[in-house]
């Protein structure tokens, strides 16, 4: 029976495919690609439209919605840049401070916690790990009000501390979890060798584990960047003066004062705000895709 099956399979495999079969397969592939292209363009079209519209005079954005502008101008960028009575670079710098601070905070605090949870032996370890997992699921809204009260008692409203300090305290439990899982894939022989050479936990962490967990650190960096850069809720709550606004809050306050001619500027500044994320998309796509595929991140 088994040999018969094997034979029939071998025969089928060796049979030269008929030419009509090949033609049909190729035609199917062409249809598939054509369909995918149409769908893809429909998906991406709004973004392209925003990009092109940024270079049109504001009053033409909606009245001439095509992709080929009858008039090209940089007005939206030059005027939009100062529309909130200070150069937009202020908001970019603010966003950069918050984003870079968050990345440093997450890398520092989450890697320390993850090493302890993945490698060191102590009584409360399982409990701590369970807590980490549980807090991944905890919606932030249930914490945000007491946190706000607490931070305002400390006089931290309208500073970046409420945005940054939690990152330095490993509150993005997701990344702790990600790093724990990664450290577990690093062969223990390496720690053992370091241990035999007389390295304690700190030296082992610094010289062995940290260099080896680079992929997890890269994933953490990328996603912290994108999430923090796009974050709107937290800065909206804590940042009260325009000079402190991050880019999303600044864009939102532009919306509030929108007029018909403002659409061009709104698009131009929105486009600029997306550029850093786009750059990550272009240059770190491999890490992004792997990050989502393995963790379910957005």
């Amino acid at each position, binding site marked *: 029976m088994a040999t018969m099956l094997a034979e029939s399979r071998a025969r089928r495999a060796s049979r030269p495919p008929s030419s009509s079969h090949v033609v049909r397969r190729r035609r199917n*592939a062409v249809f*598939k690609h054509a369909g*995918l292209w149409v769908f893809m363009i429909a998906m*991406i*079209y709004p973004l392209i*439209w*925003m990009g092109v519209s940024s270079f049109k005079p504001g009053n033409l954005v*909606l009245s001439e*919605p095509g992709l080929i502008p009858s008039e090209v101008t940089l007005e939206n960028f030059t005027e939009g840049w100062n529309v909130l009575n200070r150069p937009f670079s202020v908001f970019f710098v603010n966003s950069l401070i918050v984003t870079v601070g968050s990345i440093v905070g997450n890398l*520092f605090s989450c890697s*320390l916690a993850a090493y302890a949870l993945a*490698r*060191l*032996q*102590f009584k409360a*370890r*399982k409990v*701590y*790990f*369970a*807590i980490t997992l549980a*807090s991944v*699921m*905890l*919606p932030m809204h*249930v*914490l*945000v*009000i*007491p*946190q*706000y*009260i607490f931070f305002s008692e400390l006089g931290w409203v309208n500073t970046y501390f409420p945005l940054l300090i939690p990152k330095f*305290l*490993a509150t993005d439990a997701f990344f*702790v979890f990600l790093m724990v*899982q*990664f450290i577990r894939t690093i062969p*223990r*022989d390496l720690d*053992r060798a370091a241990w*035999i050479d007389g390295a304690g*936990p*700190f030296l082992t962490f610094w010289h062995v584990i940290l260099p080896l967990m680079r*992929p997890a650190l890269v994933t953490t960096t990328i996603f912290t960047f994108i999430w923090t850069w*796009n974050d*709107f*809720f937290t800065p909206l709550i804590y940042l009260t003066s325009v000079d402190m606004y991050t880019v999303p809050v600044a*864009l*939102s306050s532009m*919306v509030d004062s929108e007029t018909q001619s403002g659409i061009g500027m709104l*698009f131009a500044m*929105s486009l600029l705000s997306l550029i850093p994320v786009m750059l990550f*998309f272009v240059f770190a796509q491999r890490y992004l*895709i792997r990050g989502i*595929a*393995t*963790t*379910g991140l*957005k």
Partner: protein
Amino acid sequence: MARRIRHGAGVRDASAPASAASDPDDAASSGNPTAESSGTRAAASGSGRKFHLRRQGRAAHVFLLPWLLGFGLVTSVPLFASLYLAFTDYNVLSSPRFTGLSNFERMLSDDRFWAAVSVTARYVFISVPLQLGFALLLALILDRGLRGLAFYRGAFYLPSLLGSSVAVAILWREIFGHDGLVNDALAWFGIEGQSWLQNPSTALSTLMVLNVWTFGSPMVIFLAGLRQIPEDLYEAARVDGASKIRQFTHVTIPLLTPIIFFNLILQTIGSFQAFTQAHIISGGTGGPVDSTLFYTLYLYQQGFNSFNMGYASALAWVLMLAIAVVTAIHFFLSKYWVFYGDD
């Protein structure tokens, strides 16, 4: 709960870091290098192992210091504080006044609360299945050696990356506005458009479309899952004479159910908490006529516009319980349709 999710996740990509996930238990049993080596040493000197364990315990707590502070000050204290505040009347200016269940009674007769519940429920239960449907469909089309896979995958993924930004919400306002792209496209077909965002019966659907638009990230997860299905299962099915359709319904779908489940849980929890898009599109009001009043938006208005911190805390706890209940129901139902291969 977490274990089940990771079980689902584990199927996705064996070479990937997170899927090397093991239970905390088995990591404990495999021990760690230091414990093992100190164990052999302990055979020689009885107190050696204990010493090393104590030293490790101390080191562990040094490593965990930021985490412990964070868990204490930023997570657990606020968690219990908000539970307490949920039973008080608190407007920040005067100290909280205990009012028992009155916040929850107030919810029952609060029309805007019910509007928020209805808006959020419709958003979650309509847009998440649609989003996952698109994700699965595209993943199936892209799977199995299609040329240009990486390119398509990247292009379809891009909206997921940008979807939560204020910039895209601004774009959406103009697309669905009265003179926006959608109406232009409809005019092409001779259909007269309308003001999608001003119309209470269509405003929410524009946000659902936005959520469906971000199907790229579940799609990437599906693609990774599809790659995990062993080719010999299809081979065996072919040998048994199964048609393409039967292969799909009897091999692909059952083996993909853990990942469908994983995506379902993830996107459901995420969609319950959607905020930015509704805030930008409605100018923070949740209008027209509360038709885009997402639950979190109402919570924000109560907490940070009206400073009803007690009521907002109660709303937050109801949200958390709702998410927990929906997740629990999903886990309960998963017994009937998710196939883990081990039974």
